[in-house]
């Protein structure tokens, strides 16, 4: 039974990661076609020559960084505020929050495009950022809300009772408690921004490409291996970051365990 369970998990992970693996493999393939012709690093060298790919990469990162940070700030305050709301106001705000989450990306994308059109905004980086903030905030709110529910509100009142100003009490007492949720929200917002195609597709302007839009424009003729190369770099980077933070966290945990034992 245990073997069946483990095999099942392995099977699902295999399916989830198979395309990731094949793209990584092809980024080292000495051919433009998806047939293995031997190892090369030339697609990685190509990145340094291809200005349009560099541009798409920097746009993707710029939009992801700016939108996820703003979404996290607005979303964190929103979650705290919503948690304190009651009755119909709370359910109204929550239902509006669920709209972008449940509604298809295409409706979100089109409706935002129409809004920017109505406001007379030229589509480009700014409309991209605004649209990404919009679809990210609900994810941030939803990842913080459970932490707030667990939070014992008395600790905030205790801080005030001990003479802390509200802003100080927030920073020293509430924020550390909900921080895991905030960071998860930031991570999810950043990831979704990088991954997004549909909403970006409707809200970008001519000449402003992100990586996903670049991929889209190549799908008919075949995606250039440089895209695979730059995607591999991004994926590799996040893996390295996650592994190092994990190691650091477990080392810290070990230290805490040790000092607990000596007590």
């Amino acid at each position, binding site marked *: 039974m245990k073997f069946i369970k483990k095999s*099942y*998990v392995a099977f*699902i992970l295999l399916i*989830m990661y*198979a*395309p*990731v693996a*094949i*793209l990584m493999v*092809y980024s080292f393939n000495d051919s433009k076609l*998806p047939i293995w012709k031997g190892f090369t690093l030339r697609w990685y060298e190509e990145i340094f020559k291809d200005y349009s790919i560099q541009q798409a990469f920097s746009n993707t990162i710029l939009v992801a960084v700016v939108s996820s940070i703003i979404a996290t700030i*607005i979303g964190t*305050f*929103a979650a*705290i*505020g919503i948690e*304190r709301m009651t009755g119909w106001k709370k359910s109204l*705000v*929550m*239902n*509006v929050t*669920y*709209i972008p989450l*449940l509604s*298809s*990306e*295409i*409706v*979100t994308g*089109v*409706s*935002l495009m*129409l*809004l920017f059109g109505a406001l007379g905004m030229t589509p480009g980086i700014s409309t991209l950022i605004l649209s990404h*903030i*919009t679809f990210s*905030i609900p*994810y941030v709110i*939803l*990842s913080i809300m*459970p932490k707030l529910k667990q939070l014992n509100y008395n600790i905030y009142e205790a801080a005030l009772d001990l003479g802390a100003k*509200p802003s100080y009490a927030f920073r020293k007492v509430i924020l550390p408690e909900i921080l895991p*949720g905030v960071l*998860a929200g930031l991570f*999810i917002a950043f*990831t979704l921004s*990088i*991954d997004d*195609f*549909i909403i970006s597709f*409707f809200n970008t302007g001519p000449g402003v490409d992100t990586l*996903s839009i670049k*991929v*889209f424009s190549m*799908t008919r003729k075949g*995606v250039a291996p440089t*895209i695979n190369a730059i995607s591999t770099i*991004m*994926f590799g980077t996040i893996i390295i970051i*996650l592994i190092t933070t994990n190691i650091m966290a477990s080392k810290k945990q070990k230290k805490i365990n040790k000092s607990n034992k000596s007590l």
Partner: protein
Amino acid sequence: MDKKRLALPYVIWASIFVVVPVLIIVYYSFFDKGIFTLQGYKQVLNPRYLGNIMDSIGIAFISTVICLVLAYPLAMILSSKEMSAKGIILLLVILPMWMNSLLRTYAWGYLLQDTGVVNSLLSSMGLPTMQFLYKKSAIVFGNVYNFFPFMVLPIYNVLCKIDKNVIEASYDLGADKFTTFKRIILPLSMPGVITGIVMVFMPALTTFLVSRLLGGGKTTLLGDLIEQQFNKTGDWAFGSALSVILMIIILITLVFMSKKDSFDKGGGLF
């Protein structure tokens, strides 16, 4: 200080970027260059488009069912082991998104093509090769692949929250494993299942490009239809009407879900 006011920036933001756009779409669905028309909605009833819509519903339905059938056992396995920390599960499910979903869907094209990796594996095991691509089943596969995490996470979360004592109580009262699953675990996990169904069905219904990437563009789905109205034919009234209909479906779902407290009872995404 009134903590509710902290939500004010968000409320303003959501009004401008969520509520107003919905109203604009409603407006465009009724007005063509300022003139009132029901043409957009009439178009929906055009048998050709109705066919596309039915295709989309069918594909989305099958994709959702497959997701559910695959995700429920996975969520059960993951939630049963205490050792697999919650953060790692979330990470493993989200991590592939760091490689663009469009690119990954495209990569399935490599893997599933007639001379691709999957067929090479099949023939090396002495099994007959198959044509995977350019069929409706390929679109279903793409949907299942892309939206699977949105089914696993809510079910996993709701299963983690079930009190172990409640399950023991069921055994204690004479229910065997199957009966306990049927009468206790399954009903208690329904909020997560409902969230999962909604979060897979809606995007699967309106996805576009998957059909183009894996289905060979032979099947036009709801998402492709909407995209065409705005980017090619310029029939905004029709495109908006389709969006409004989707919106109404979403609103009905929302009312249904908040009645059932799906999100509050632990069926949330995280």
